[in-house]
């Protein structure tokens, strides 16, 4: 792939990819690594891009797949992880706080509410999580979401209805 073309793609879509990764992975370092992985894959596979979808939805699809793979890999690691205390044995202070995710893009007055919403989104099934992130945070329309998720617009609509219902139930339970 030509260097100029690659840089153009990067400058047009890197922010979108980075923010999507942040919404999925909820960690800045991991999001940076995932963004790199996305663009490496874009570079490797650009020859296969047939133009049936837009560049934007094609890159979104790659980003979603990479984020989901990373989440699955993390769950596999957790299964084999050693159990250790999250409190320091010396001072008793909390060392690791895996609780709430403070989104760096959230406004100050919204931080707490957004953190709760992300906790609830985290518990959704994979496809519902993807639909909600793409619709409510990334602002894609239903046609774009259907291209990214390889499903019909009607399927996306019903998925969003279920996702919103589940999200509401989880948020209500927490409150």
């Amino acid at each position: 792939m030509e260097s100029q073309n690659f840089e153009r793609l990067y400058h047009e879509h890197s922010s979108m990819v980075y923010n999507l990764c942040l919404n999925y992975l909820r960690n800045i370092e991991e999001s940076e690594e995932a963004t790199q992985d996305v663009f490496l894959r874009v570079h490797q596979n650009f020859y296969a891009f047939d133009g049936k979808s837009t560049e934007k939805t094609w890159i979104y699809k790659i980003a979603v797949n990479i984020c989901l793979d990373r989440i699955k890999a993390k769950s596999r690691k957790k299964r084999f992880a050693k159990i250790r205390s999250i409190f320091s044995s010396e001072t008793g202070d909390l060392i690791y706080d895996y609780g709430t995710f403070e989104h760096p893009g959230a406004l100050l007055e919204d931080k707490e509410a957004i953190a709760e919403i992300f906790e609830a989104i985290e518990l959704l099934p994979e496809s519902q999580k993807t639909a909600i992130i793409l619709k409510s945070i990334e602002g894609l329309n239903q046609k774009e979401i259907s291209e990214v998720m390889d499903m019909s617009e009607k399927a996306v609509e019903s998925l969003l209805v279920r996702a919103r219902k589940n999200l509401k139930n989880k948020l209500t339970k927490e409150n």
Partner: protein
Amino acid sequence: MMKNEKNTDELLARIQKLETPPYLLTRIQAKLDNANELFVSKPKVAFVGALFTLLLLINFMVLTGNVNQVQSDKVNVIAEDFGLTTTNQLYNE
């Protein structure tokens, strides 16, 4: 849409998009350069493969040619030991 859902959607829509860290492109380009150094093109692989196959074929042909020659030599030695002729001539002249 229920009020709660509207609030959730509104809150999520208010999340500001962050700029990508400036060093990311440099890192990606470094990884691509590294990958290119290790990369061998398919035509090169095919050419080397064909060359290797040809070499094996020539080797095989030379070996089988030698074996036939050795067998022929052995037959001649045995025939001479028994005084048998290896030619079509009936009389030794």
